[in-house]
């Protein structure tokens, strides 16, 4: 019996020691939360340098995009300690700042000499500031991203197709400069037989569940003249959201969906778009810039076969693109904020940022993107720069999720299900958004 007690005693001590050592190991290990996508893999690679320099281990919690917002907003709302660092979506900044999820970084930036003026202006406004356009920083711009287009350069350069296109539309088949041209190109390729395979015009965002169709529609609406609100009277949306120009933009998006997308593409977002392009189904493909390095490297459609172009201009020559991307923040519920800030300091270093770009991340540091060698550094670098110069973002209000769900429903009902008119959809959207802001006490 005594032996049995001794055995249990030893096991207990061993278990306690094990727990103790586990806790000790955790003290020098940070958990970084982000979406599961290609740049996340690049960040894992990059972060090895941080561990080598500081001895602080890095653990990663990556969640697929479809569950990314649900998972991490739940984590933040429940004041969870899973994430020490989080690369949160740009639209979360308002809610996360107002609800105390993120640590305010102004004092830290001042202390460490990190200047926001060193980063691309649009990314600072989009990823770091709340309220917008005020010097209150809650994140360091981490991953620049924007919606742009890729196209099949090899198909566009075929002489027989060029000849036929010129005869039909009167201009040279090339990357479109306006949305009108984009639709003509898409129509030209729709149901065309190329190398014995039926292909389609374009892959665009139509996803219903999270944010897909809103990102796609907005990407077009901005260039047609859509405005979120009266610039002189915040939250006044009547006549701006549902302006004549916005209606035309939404009608255009539906026309593009109806005429020129692959069959069954009623719920497409980033992954489905990449699949459609990689499998040689479409001539053009709307997607965030983060997909470009992967497409460029792809054996079937990459290299010389793929080209990139910025979002085309609308009927009045206005040209904007939907901002993507994220900033990196320190979670206020983390017990390891000091180590997390060390990571941010390390990440802001120009050399690290250069390496970040070379590994497939999209740096927001001016020293990297304004380097004269940058446009030639990758085939898509020039398009990325052009696109980042024309970005606009969705609402970043604390109620962004309600605002987003309203637009998802209105746009999908009209564009995909074909219910009602564009005017009715946008009028409905104004009503929905007004209700949200009334609930928030902002109207």
């Amino acid at each position, binding site marked *: 019996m005594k032996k049995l007690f001794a055995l249990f005693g030893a096991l207990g001590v061993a278990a306690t020691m094990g727990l103790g050592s586990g806790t000790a190991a955790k003290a020098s290990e940070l958990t970084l939360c982000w979406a599961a996508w290609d740049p996340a893999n690049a960040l894992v690679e990059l972060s090895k340098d941080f561990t080598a320099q500081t001895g602080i281990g890095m653990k990663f919690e990556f969640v697929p995009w479809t569950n990314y917002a649900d998972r991490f907003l739940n984590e933040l709302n429940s004041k969870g300690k899973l994430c020490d660092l989080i690369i949160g979506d740009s639209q979360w900044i308002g809610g996360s700042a107002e609800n105390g999820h993120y640590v305010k970084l102004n004092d830290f930036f001042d202390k460490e000499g990190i200047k926001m003026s060193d980063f691309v202006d649009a990314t600072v406004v989009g990823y770091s500031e709340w309220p917008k356009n005020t010097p209150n920083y809650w994140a360091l711009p981490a991953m620049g991203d924007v919606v742009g287009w890729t196209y099949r350069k090899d198909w566009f350069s075929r002489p027989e197709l060029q000849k036929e296109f010129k005869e039909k539309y009167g201009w040279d088949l090339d990357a479109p400069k306006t949305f009108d041209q984009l639709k003509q190109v898409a129509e030209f390729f729709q149901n065309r037989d190329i190398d014995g395979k039926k292909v389609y015009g374009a892959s665009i965002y139509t996803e219903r569940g999270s944010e897909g169709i809103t990102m796609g529609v907005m990407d077009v609406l901005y260039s047609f003249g859509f405005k979120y609100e009266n610039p002189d009277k915040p939250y006044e949306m009547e006549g701006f959201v549902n302006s004549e120009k916005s209606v035309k933009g939404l009608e255009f998006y539906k026309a593009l969906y109806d005429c020129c997308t692959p*069959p*069954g593409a*009623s719920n497409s977002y980033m992954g489905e778009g990449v699949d459609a392009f990689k499998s040689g189904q479409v001539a053009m493909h709307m997607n965030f810039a983060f997909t470009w390095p992967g497409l460029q490297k792809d054996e079937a459609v990459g290299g010389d076969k793929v080209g990139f172009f910025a979002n085309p201009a609308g009927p009045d020559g206005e040209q904007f693109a939907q901002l993507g991307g994220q900033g990196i923040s320190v979670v206020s519920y983390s017990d390891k904020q000091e180590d997390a800030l060390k990571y941010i300091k390390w990440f802001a270093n120009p050399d690290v940022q250069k390496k970040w770009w070379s590994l497939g991340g999209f740096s927001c540091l001016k020293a990297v993107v304004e380097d004269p060698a940058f446009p030639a550094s990758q085939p898509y670098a020039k398009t990325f720069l052009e696109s980042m110069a024309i970005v606009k973002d969705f609402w970043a209000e604390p109620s962004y999720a309600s605002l987003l769900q309203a637009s998802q429903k209105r746009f999908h009902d009209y564009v995909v299900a074909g*219910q009602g008119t564009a005017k009715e959809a946008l009028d409905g959207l104004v009503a929905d958004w007004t209700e949200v802001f009334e609930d928030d006490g902002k109207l």
Partner: protein
Amino acid sequence: MTETSSTLLDRATEAAARRTPDGIAKRVRGLSDRMVAWLFIAPTILLLLAINIFPLIWAIQLSFTNYRANRPNEPIKNIGLSNYSRILNDADTWIAMQATAHFVFWTIVLQTVIGFTLAYLIDRKFRGHAFWTTIILVPMMLSPAVVGNFWRFLYEPQIGLFAYIVSFVTGLPTTDIQMLSNVSLAPWSIIIVDTWMWTPYVMLICLAGLRSIPDYIYEAAEVDRASNWRQFWSITLPMALPFIMLAVLFRGIENFKMFDMVNLLTGGGPGSTTEVASITLKREAFEKWRTGYSSAFAIILFVAVFGLANIYVKVLNRVKSR
């Protein structure tokens, strides 16, 4: 005379005590039989209180507030019945309810008809019936996540097997068969998958019902020279009816809260065509984070299911007592 619940409880306690081996009773000295019985059921009751009753009471309380889980620092205001009134006056709520009713009605009709037919055939005990029973049961054994994902591929207009079969039968091009994108077809695409998956379950219950009918009743009917048709309408169907109704109850409750299959196949789309009540509830609760509002919505759904199920159970009892 009806027995009170305390009398029933006392009897149950006594029965439990009687079944407790003497050895245990002797070891737990100082505790009455009633106390021992309570000790045994206490963990279950605590668990029930913690994961069912407490959240229900909390949800009822939240449903009268403006609480939002993503705004922990905002003061929680009591807004009375405002959430309930907004939900019941919202046209979208009724559209979601219609979509739910359409889904529940057709899945129950199809599953009951096909399930009973299959059970009737299997009950004939033909050669290899055991093998076919196993094959028919396979869909029910799969995870809904797996089923949803592979049916999404089956429905794919360009590469999907379903589209090829329909195209072969109808002569339409496969790219015209867009089950998940077409507003008219999308609700049926979900009904087909749910029927495919859960008809075996209905079949099993019906089979139990059919096998519970004593052979001598049929033998008596044979003696009376009742035709097969007459036997079916006068013996088989009435005696299997309580089982069929039980299957309908189970499938009705299950499908009223259907979420996973719809979420995987259409996500509620195209537009809001397949947005059943549970999808709306999920969007309100975990995408818009309107916790008070979604609690009220959940209570409304709970009351609806509970009320309908109670009426149904009363009818079922009446049928059984006939």
